[in-house]
């Protein structure tokens, strides 16, 4: 048998730094050189004190923001050299987002919000898109709510819609910034369970920012950011990865 080339990691960070207020007298470096590798199928938590730079890091990984220095590789592709339009395409095809406040678009229904990433990517709505969105809504248990306007749903429901939306393009990596931060314990548990289910079924990689240690412990790997650095010793799985 020929050697199968090793698939590149979903994410590789090399010496990522991020400063704000560059060129002003309030210039401040938030990330001080982050090295991190995440392989396909990993289910990770990103923890750390408030203000430590978790969201800043997540935005850089999600190609919404650029590092001041260092390199970001998404599935082996060096994003440093990419123009805005190419970053946008890579983001659209490879990365899904789930934010703390689900951040659905209120002018659209649940179904339409889930269709949005594909609609944006292809330019015109079609039947396949609709069916895909319907099945995703079914998967997050909201098939019956598909025609509700985004605002007319509870926080937990909205977050489920947001997860369905993040899955629409079947991305390799889903970045979730405190997805359960605004939810009660029960809803938080079920949202996490949903993400785990997707992780197992699709080998989708998850990086979940959370302040909830209980929740973090249910992931395969906890990555801790302290003062803009990955704190040593946590960059290893705490629990054996679920096979």
């Amino acid at each position, binding site marked *: 048998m020929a050697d199968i080339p090793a698939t590149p990691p979903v994410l590789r960070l090399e010496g990522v730094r991020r400063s704000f207020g560059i060129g002003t007298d309030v210039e401040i470096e938030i990330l001080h050189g982050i090295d991190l590798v995440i392989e396909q199928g990993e289910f990770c938590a990103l923890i750390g004190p408030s203000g430590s730079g978790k*969201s800043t890091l997540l*935005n850089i990984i*999600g190609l*919404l*923001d650029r590092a001041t220095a260092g390199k970001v590789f998404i599935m082996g592709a060096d994003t440093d050299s990419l123009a*805005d*339009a190419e970053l*946008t*395409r890579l*983001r*659209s*095809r490879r990365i899904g*987002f789930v*934010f703390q406040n689900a*951040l*659905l*678009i*209120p*002018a*659209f229904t649940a179904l*339409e919000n889930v*269709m*949005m*990433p594909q*609609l*944006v*990517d292809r*330019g*015109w*709505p*079609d*039947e396949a898109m609709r069916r895909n969105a319907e099945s995703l809504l079914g998967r997050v248990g909201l098939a019956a709510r598909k025609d509700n306007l985004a605002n007319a749903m509870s926080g937990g429901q909205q977050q489920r819609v947001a997860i369905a*939306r993040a899955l629409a*393009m079947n991305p390799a990596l889903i970045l979730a910034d405190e997805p359960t931060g605004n939810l009660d314990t029960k809803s938080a548990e079920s949202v996490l369970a949903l993400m785990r289910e997707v992780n197992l079924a699709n080998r989708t990689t998850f990086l979940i920012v959370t302040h909830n240690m209980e929740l973090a412990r249910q992931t395969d790997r906890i990555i801790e950011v302290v003062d803009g650095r990955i704190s040593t010793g946590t960059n290893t799985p705490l629990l054996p990865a679920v096979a």
Partner: protein
Amino acid sequence: MNPLLPFEWIAAVRFLKEGRAQTLLTVVGASVGVAVVVFMSALLLAVQANIFTRILSTQPHIAISPPKDEARPLRDPRIAGEIATIQAPAQKLRSIDQWQKIRALLQSIPDVTVVSPSVSGAAFAVRGDASKAITLSGIESEPFYKIVNLPEKIISGSARLAANDMLVGSQLAINLGVGLGEKIHIRSATGIDEIYTISGIFDLGNRGANERSVFVPLRAAQNLLGLQGGANALDINVADPMTAESMALRMAAETGLQADSWIKTFDQLFTSLRTQTAANRAIQFFVGLAVALGIASVLVVSVVQRSKEIGILRAMGASRGQILRIFLLQGAIVGLLGSIVGSALGAGFVQLWRIFARNPDGTPFFVITLAPGLFLIAGLVATLTGLLAALMPAISASRLNPVEAIRG
């Protein structure tokens, strides 16, 4: 979602629908602007068209006459400069040399619709003691009526001109105390005196003309005015009256005769009409500007209000171009809707004008027509205005930093 619309349209329409009150206000603003422009343009066009038809119903587009004797300097080659000016002789009646040939030549020019020869001169209409100065015109009725539609202006009798018939203006008939079928003497400056029967009385819509004008057959006028076989004017109509001046210049060059277009004759009128048109343009421009500023300011606010949604769309993979187009489209749609509603409103104003703007006797001041082209142009300009108005807000939307927009 409508499968026939692309993403940008879907988003633009949704955003407009969601921002109901704002959208309504801008559409109403654009509508009022379009309505004003449509109504004013229609009114102005109608006023000008009305003036033109009035003038042209009693005027040829071009009048050809023999070259004028002009004042010219008398020079002595031995002395530099002018020693005297020979005054132009009093203009006496002269025929156009070989007018039949020239008539044929003119008729062969494309766009010349009719050439009508005539003989005109001063004369007196005499009945008993009463004697009135008149302008006597000898005409060939068939071509002449294509220029001045006398049959339409006859108020009694008919426009048919037999050998000893004459047509007189209504005021002249009153002044002389004569009616249809009665006879009067026409006496020319050369002393010739003939008797004619009034076969028709007309109203040219102008007291001066009604007081002086008398029409007789061409041959009769030739005899009376001493221009046997001659014609001292060729009246011409062309396909497009607005081209009359350039055609007149061409005819003058080709024939060596005097050719005066109605545009030259009514030069002052044209200047004032041009001023009117320019003023209308300026008003349209400022109305458009006001509408554009209205749309722009609402969209600027909308971009701020929607910055979070813009950030989400960007995180979902929407490109800057897509965001730009969503907001450009909103401007264009507002402009288009405004032009549709505004055109309807403008048409309504015109209808009201038709009902209420009437003379005391109930006849309309003049006819306003609404050309479909006007709506088309209004729609196009309004849509474009909306698009341009949206440019600045759309660019700022496309440049929003998604991270800040989402955090904000």
